[in-house]
């Protein structure tokens, strides 16, 4: 059973969807039932950050060993991260409309997300503008490492000292402190793990198709 983690991922995601809608949640002022979005919105970001980290690790490998395999893995996990970022953005935006009053607010985390999306889109613009595969691998890896470090600074360090509307920042308490009760934990953690596993699976599929595509285009090498 080498595919156990895929099954586990699907089961965990299914469980989090069903449980997410059915298990009772604490009714907090303003947030009330929309807190269920926590099960969908937050895991997206965890999955995205994990995929971006995988991508940058393979970029370092690709750069130090100039391996084509690592480059495929790096670029495909970056492209698998984008849908997660988009879904995270959409779910977050809807949630923000109901709790903070607007679809888009001036919040350091939102700015960080907008920047990271633009960075990854720029990464693909860069990749598509280089024809030579080896050069593409080398240059885009350099940009990926550079960009990842800036992104981490942006989404993990800056929100620490700028006020944010998000829980856990600027006087808002973190969810964990007062209303992430044990019922919610039983759904939230599996949801995170499940979506991360799904992300890794997506990446693996993309890597395999990309390899097949290259094999078809360039023959065996």
């Amino acid at each position: 059973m080498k595919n156990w983690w895929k099954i586990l991922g699907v089961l965990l995601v299914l469980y989090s969807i069903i449980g997410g809608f059915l298990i009772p949640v604490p009714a907090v002022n303003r947030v009330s039932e929309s807190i269920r979005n926590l099960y969908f919105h937050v895991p997206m970001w965890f999955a995205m950050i994990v995929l971006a980290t995988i991508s940058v690790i393979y970029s370092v490998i690709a750069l130090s060993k100039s391996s084509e395999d690592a480059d495929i893995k790096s670029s495909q996990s970056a492209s698998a991260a984008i849908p997660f970022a988009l879904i995270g953005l959409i779910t977050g935006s809807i949630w923000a409309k109901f709790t903070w009053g607007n679809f888009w607010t001036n919040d350091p985390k939102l700015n960080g997300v907008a920047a990271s999306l633009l960075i990854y889109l720029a990464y693909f613009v860069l990749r598509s503008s280089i024809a030579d595969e080896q050069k593409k691998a080398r240059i885009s890896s350099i940009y990926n490492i550079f960009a990842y470090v800036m992104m981490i600074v942006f989404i993990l360090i800056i929100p620490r000292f700028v006020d944010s509307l998000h829980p856990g920042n600027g006087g808002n308490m973190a969810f964990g402190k007062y209303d992430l009760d044990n019922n919610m934990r039983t759904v939230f953690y599996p949801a995170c793990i499940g979506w991360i596993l799904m992300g890794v699976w997506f990446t693996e599929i993309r890597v395999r198709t990309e390899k097949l595509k290259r094999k078809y285009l360039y023959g065996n090498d």
Partner: protein
Amino acid sequence: MLEFRQRASFAGIILYLVGCIYLSYLAFIGSELKDRGFWNALLWIILLFNSIISVSKSFASEVKGRALYNYTIYDPRHLILAKLFYNMLLVLVVSLTGFFFYGWFIGNLVKNIPLFVVNICLASMAFSGILTMTTGIASKINGSFTLISVLSIPLLFPLMLIAMRISLLAALGSSFAGCAQYLMALGALNVMVIVLCYLLFPYLWKE
């Protein structure tokens, strides 16, 4: 090793800068620009685009032969440090000139000028670090100006956010101690960008 050979292009950058500032002055005739937030935002947008333009010359104007020549005689690490140093100086001069002319035409609303100048210095150093790297990347692909902007602008977001916040605080009259943490963050960003350039540039350089 420094490249102050292209004096014409330097004059061009300064002229472009003054032109931009004068244009924004013309655009604001009739309406009073007294709001510090707005004043600040306009200044930083102008400075941002001017630093992109000034740094984008640094690899683009290299002819093929000279790049090869540099490649054979210099260690890439030394080359990137020299380029960083030169670009930092260039952006610094451009930004300070920009601030001077901006204050001249549009009016200076800054209360704590030393803090503002220190902030401009730190921010332009970090600007030039990021821009040197992205220009280097773009130059490997016949560096078009669009590509440089696309690659660098999202990377500049965090920097702009911190720098604009400090400068707004300085404009409102905050003291050095009041924004010590932001200044430290800016300094740390500088160090990080330089280290990254130093580590990654050799890979970019080899053909």
